[in-house]
C-alpha cells in the first residue's frame, strides 16, 4: 500500500453489516483502482476507533441491539467526529445514518443519544415498517454534482426528522425514506451523506460514489464506463416505475 493510497474505513462491519452495505466500501475502493488510484478498505471493528489516516468512512444498516450498543461507544463517536472535522467523507446508511444524529429510537421506542455529528432525530413513528424499492430525486447539492435519480431498497422502522435548514439527500418519489412531511430521504451536510437506501446504494448509484470520491481525491475523476451498472440501474428503475402503479418513469 503506497503512501498515497485512499483509505476507505468500513465502520463496525460486524455490527452494521446486516443488509449488504459493506458493498459500498468495495465499490468505492474499486472505482478508484480502476482509475489507477491506489485504494484500500480498512475494517474498523471490535473496539477500534477511526484512524487519523482514513479518507472516507462507510457505515451500514444493522439490527436494533447492535445499533444501541454502537451508540454507547463514545470513543468511536468522537473519532468519527474528528474524521469529519478533518474533512473525511462519510456515507452512512440506515442504522448507521440514525446513529450519526442527535437521538434515535430503539425497539420499543425508547430514545438513545446518537453521536450528534449531524442534525437529525429518529423516532419509531412510522405507521408501519418501510420495506421495498425506493426512488429519490437528488437534492440541490447532489444534482449539481451530476448525480441522477437515486435507486435503492429500504427496510427500516425509524422515522427521521431533519433539523431546520438541513438539506436532504433526495426527495422520495417512490417509497418512504425519512418518512417526514417533506418526503425527504437522508441528508447531506458537508461531506457527510446519510440515506435509507440499501442495494447497496453505491452499487446502484455510481455517480453518488464518484461525488463522494471527488471530495476526497480533490480532483475530477476520469469517467468510468461500466455497462453492467447501467443495465442494473435501468432494470431497477423500470421495475420501480411498474410498482409505482401509474405511468411514470425516471431517466437513467
Amino acid at each position, binding site marked *: 500500500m503506497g503512501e498515497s493510497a485512499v483509505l476507505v474505513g468500513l465502520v463496525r*462491519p*460486524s*455490527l452494521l*453489516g*446486516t*443488509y*449488504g*452495505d*459493506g*458493498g459500498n466500501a*468495495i*465499490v468505492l475502493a*474499486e472505482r478508484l483502482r480502476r482509475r489507477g488510484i491506489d485504494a484500500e478498505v480498512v475494517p474498523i471493528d*471490535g*473496539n477500534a476507533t477511526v484512524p487519523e489516516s482514513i479518507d472516507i468512512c462507510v457505515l451500514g444498516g*444493522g*439490527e*436494533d*441491539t*447492535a445499533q*444501541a*450498543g454502537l451508540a454507547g461507544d463514545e470513543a468511536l463517536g468522537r473519532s468519527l467526529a474528528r474524521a469529519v472535522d478533518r474533512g473525511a467523507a462519510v456515507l452512512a446508511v440506515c442504522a448507521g445514518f440514525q446513529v450519526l444524529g442527535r437521538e434515535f429510537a430503539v425497539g420499543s421506542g425508547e430514545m438513545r443519544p446518537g453521536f450528534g455529528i449531524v442534525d437529525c432525530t429518529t423516532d419509531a413513528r412510522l405507521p408501519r*415498517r418501510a*420495506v*421495498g424499492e425506493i426512488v429519490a430525486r437528488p437534492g440541490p447539492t447532489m444534482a449539481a454534482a451530476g448525480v441522477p435519480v437515486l435507486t435503492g*431498497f429500504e*427496510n427500516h422502522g425509524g422515522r427521521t426528522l431533519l433539523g431546520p435548514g438541513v438539506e436532504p439527500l433526495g426527495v422520495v418519489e417512490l417509497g418512504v425514506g425519512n418518512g417526514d412531511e417533506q418526503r425527504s430521504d437522508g441528508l447531506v451536510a458537508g461531506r457527510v451523506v446519510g440515506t435509507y437506501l*440499501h*442495494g*447497496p446504494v453505491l*452499487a446502484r448509484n455510481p455517480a453518488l460514489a464518484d461525488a463522494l470520491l471527488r471530495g476526497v481525491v480533490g480532483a475530477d475523476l476520469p469517467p468510468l464506463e*461500466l455497462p*453492467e*451498472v447501467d*443495465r*442494473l440501474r435501468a*432494470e431497477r428503475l423500470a421495475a420501480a416505475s411498474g410498482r409505482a402503479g401509474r405511468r411514470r418513469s425516471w431517466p437513467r
Partner: protein
Amino acid sequence: MRARAALAAGRVASRLSRALGRGEGAVIGGKVALTLDPSVADHLAAGRRIALVTGTNGKTTTTALLAAALRTDGPVASNTSGANLATGHVAALFGSPGVETAALEVDEAVLPWAIAHLLPVVVVLLNLSRDQLDRLHEVRRTAALWRDALAGAPGVHVVANADDPVVVAAVPPSAGVTWVAAGQWWRLDATSCPRCGSVIGFDAAGGKAWACPGCDLKRPEPDVVWEDDQGVCIDGGWHRLDLSLPGRFNRGNAAMAAVAAVAMGVPAAPAVAAETSVGSVADRYVVRPWGDGKEVRMLLAKNPAGWLEVLELLATSDADSFVIALNARGEDGTDPSWIWDVPFERLRDRYVVCAGERAADLAVRLTYAGVQYAYEPAPAAALDAAPGSSVDLAANYSAFQQFRRVLRHG
C-alpha cells in the same frame, strides 16, 4: 365433523391440481382444508409423535436425514417437497393417515404456529442467520419468536446447535435440551449478543468457544460432540458420518438429525447408518445431464451463510465452470443486497455464468469482485453458455426450482 368435511374438500382440490398439471397438489389441498377449518392441523397431528426441524439453512436436507433415520423403526410422514408452511404440514400429515411418526420441516417464522398446533415431541434448531430480511426483518426478532414459543411448550425436547449464539439465545431456560456441537462458520449475524448487544467474544485461536462479556450468554457445554474428521459422539459412542451428501455443513446436519432420531427413540447406530443412504434431497446435490454430454450438479445457495458453504464446496470442485443464479421473488426475499456479503472474489480464477431474474445484480457484484463472467439470465441459455463437460450450478430458492424444471425436461 367439520374437520372431516375440510379434509374431503382438500382431497378434491389436491386431485384437481394434479389433474390440471399445476404441481404436486399437496399445498393447495392443505390450503383448502385449512381455510375451511383452521383446526384441521390440530386434528391431523393428534396422537402422532412429531419432530420439527427449523433453521435458516439445511432444513430440507436435515428433515430428509431425520426421516431416513426414523424409518428404520417404521413408516414416517414428512413434507419432503420442502413445503414448510402450515399448508405443507397439513398436506404431509393428511397424506399419511395412520402413520404415527412424523418429521416435518418448518419455516423459521412458522415455528410458533407449528409448536402450538402440532404439539411436537422434538424440535430441532439448526442455525439462524440473515435471510429474507424484507420478510423476517431482523435475525434477532426470529430468535425471540422461537424463545417465546418454546417457553410456552416446556414438554418439548429441544435439539439445538451450541455453536450458533443466536440459536442458543433462542432456547429458554425452561427447555429440556440436547446441545450439539454442529458447527456454524458464518458468524456475522452473531457478533453482537442477541440478549444484551455486547460484542460476543469468539475463541481467537480458532476454537469453538464463545461467550458474551456483557451477560451470561455463552456456548453451552455440548452434550453431543461432532468433529468433521471423526463423526458424532452420542452417549459415549462414536459414529462415523460417511454420507452420500457432500460438505462439512451436511455432516453437521446429519449429526443434528441423528441426535433428534435418538430423542425420538431410535438407537444411534441404525439411525446414522440410514443417513448414509440419503443421496439427494429435492434435487439438491443431484447431477443431471444437459445438452451434448454436459453434467450439471445442482446446489442451493440462498443467503450468505449458505453461500459460504457452497464456496467451500466449489473450492475443491473440479467442475469446468460455474453457473450462479439469483431471483428475488417473495419466497427468496425481495432484496438481494446480501450478495455483497458473499466473498465472490474467491471465484476470480474460475469461469462463471450469471443467471436468474436478478442476473444484473450478480453481474455488478462479479464486476466489482474482478470475476470473469458471462451474462445469461435464462436457465437454458446459461447452461448452454457454461463451458466444459461438468458444471456446478448454485442457485437461490426460486431460481433453483426454475433450473430444476429445465434440467428435468431438457
